[in-house]
């Protein structure tokens, strides 16, 4: 099988507050809501993903930290209860997921061929990190699409930011090769917040939105500058200033998912669609989409008839 392709990439941050605010049955703690603009942003992203009907979702999460190499989930079925170590009061989520092991192995192999240290995670008792789970729930709560989970090697923190992001560029290119070689129609999820300055204490009622705002005005201004460039499709400019953004806004994109995703998509100068922006304990979060099918950069012919039918039905419902 060959001719796989990347259909779209999403910037899909993972604050567990969004799951908490939504009150899905899988999550034990219950809320009165909260963070609606960001949750509505994810609703729009869900609809778009639904139209794309990918074979697989690939997610790179900063909360699976690996010291030695880039790791890939390599167990077909994983389940358990994920308790967020930082916000256990908000996120205690029972999950079950299916891994596209064949694609994960191909990603691992291609990464190794490009000189990266890469390994498969084969332990069936492994606890999937809450960043991976939150992003996947928010983008596809049905859990009916296989996934590939990728760890965040600590290279951007251990080495310089630039050296670390170079590695993520290589990982992204390897991921693209693996997708093409395995014939998958894939969607990429970069599980990253933008400005990561945050409050150090939580309100008694975490979903009290009267207490939610950007922690830092400078960080907010950075987020708006980056989003505006992304909305204009000025990808090269974003990556030129990315190290400065990371330093000055303490941006979580340092952990690499954003670079990995854009490298895999070959850094298209394509206007990103902003589904929404909001803060969570003061951090800046944008849900954004780069739809390569709509832009003609991925083959619309590859969309199965069922997807096209679904799209028509959706369009009809909107009329």
């Amino acid at each position, binding site marked *: 099988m060959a001719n796989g392709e990347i259909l779209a990439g999403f910037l899909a941050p993972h604050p567990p507050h969004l799951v908490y605010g939504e009150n899905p049955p899988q999550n034990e703690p219950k809320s009165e809501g909260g963070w609606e603009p960001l949750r509505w942003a994810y609703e729009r992203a869900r609809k778009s993903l639904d139209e794309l009907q990918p074979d697989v979702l690939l997610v790179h999460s900063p909360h699976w930290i*690996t*010291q030695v190499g880039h*790791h890939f989930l390599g167990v077909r079925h994983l389940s358990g*209860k994920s*308790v967020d170590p930082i916000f256990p009061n908000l996120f205690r989520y029972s999950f079950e997921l299916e891994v596209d092991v064949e694609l994960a192995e191909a990603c691992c192999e291609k990464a190794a061929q490009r000189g990266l240290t890469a390994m498969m995670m084969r332990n069936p008792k492994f*606890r999937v990190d809450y960043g991976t789970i939150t992003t996947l729930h928010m983008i596809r709560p049905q859990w009916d699409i296989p996934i590939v989970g990728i760890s965040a090697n600590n290279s951007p923190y251990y080495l310089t930011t630039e050296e670390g992001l170079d590695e993520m560029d290589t990982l992204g290119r390897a991921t693209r090769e693996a997708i093409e070689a395995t014939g998958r129609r894939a969607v990429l999820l970069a599980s990253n917040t933008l400005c990561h300055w945050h409050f*150090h*204490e939580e309100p008694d009622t975490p979903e009290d939105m009267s207490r939610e705002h950007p922690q830092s005005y400078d960080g907010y201004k950075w987020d708006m500058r980056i989003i505006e460039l992304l909305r204009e499709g000025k990808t090269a400019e974003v990556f030129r200033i990315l190290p400065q953004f990371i330093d000055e806004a303490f941006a979580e994109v340092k952990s690499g998912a954003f670079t990995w995703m854009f490298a895999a998509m070959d850094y298209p100068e394509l206007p990103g669609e902003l589904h929404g922006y909001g803060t969570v304990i003061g951090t800046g979060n944008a849900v954004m989409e780069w739809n390569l099918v709509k832009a003609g950069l991925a083959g619309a012919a590859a969309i199965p008839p069922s997807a096209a039918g679904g799209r028509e039905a959706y369009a009809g419902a909107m009329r």
Partner: protein
Amino acid sequence: MTAVSAFLVPGSPLHLLRPDNPPWRPIIAGFERAARALAVSRPDAILLYSTQWIAVLDALWQARPRLTGTHVDENWHDLGDMPFDIRVDTDLAHACVKAVKAAGISSKSVDYDQFPIDSGTIVATRLLDPDGRFPLVMAANNLYHDAATTMKMAGVAAATARAQNKKVAVVGVGGLSGTVFREPVAIEQDRIAADSDDDWNRRILRLLEKGETGQLDGRIDEYAREARVDMGFKHFAWIRGAIGGRFFGARVHGYGPAHGAGAAVIEFRL
């Protein structure tokens, strides 16, 4: 004195998961000697701080009476599972939350089924107290706390134990130098990754052995920076805080590598 013994131990899962690997034998032997010393000191509870239990809001304290399960390390998942069964002194933990909060450091307890227990805590408890004889009080490493805040927190915890007439063993879980191999290395060939790190580690261990607290105070920041010490050596700050700042020397029960990083099992003379 409230503290009847104090130890600094590594939290790498490598030693627990492959205890017979020759480069790791000195650490395992060190843990065995430290475990005997801890048992002899007969504490009522262990005050434990692991650099691998990360917090960013508040100082977190574990308050679930019993923690059981099987943990798989995020990086070393291929080496096996780490079952654990930990008892917590919940009276003392809750009192620590209250006292540390009163001392001006925002604190919270955590009491949740399947709360993720970090590798360091499991390694330390499995190797220092294999039979689970002593209940624990566990505090998280808040990334925004500096050494002074960590010392203050530990001091308040020790004072709280004293108020409950409890003797405590103090345990700081974390590594020494932090340079690691960034690629797989045959485990039987593990070694300290950089000679300069090894020199730094040995220099600091000598000062600890002699109890040269004055000289240590002047060198720790430089050591942390030059040798990339695990979390800036805050696990040592925890120990210093809980024992009132002073110790009269230390015994290095074992020193060796953990995939290039430095590791040591150290018992402090109180």
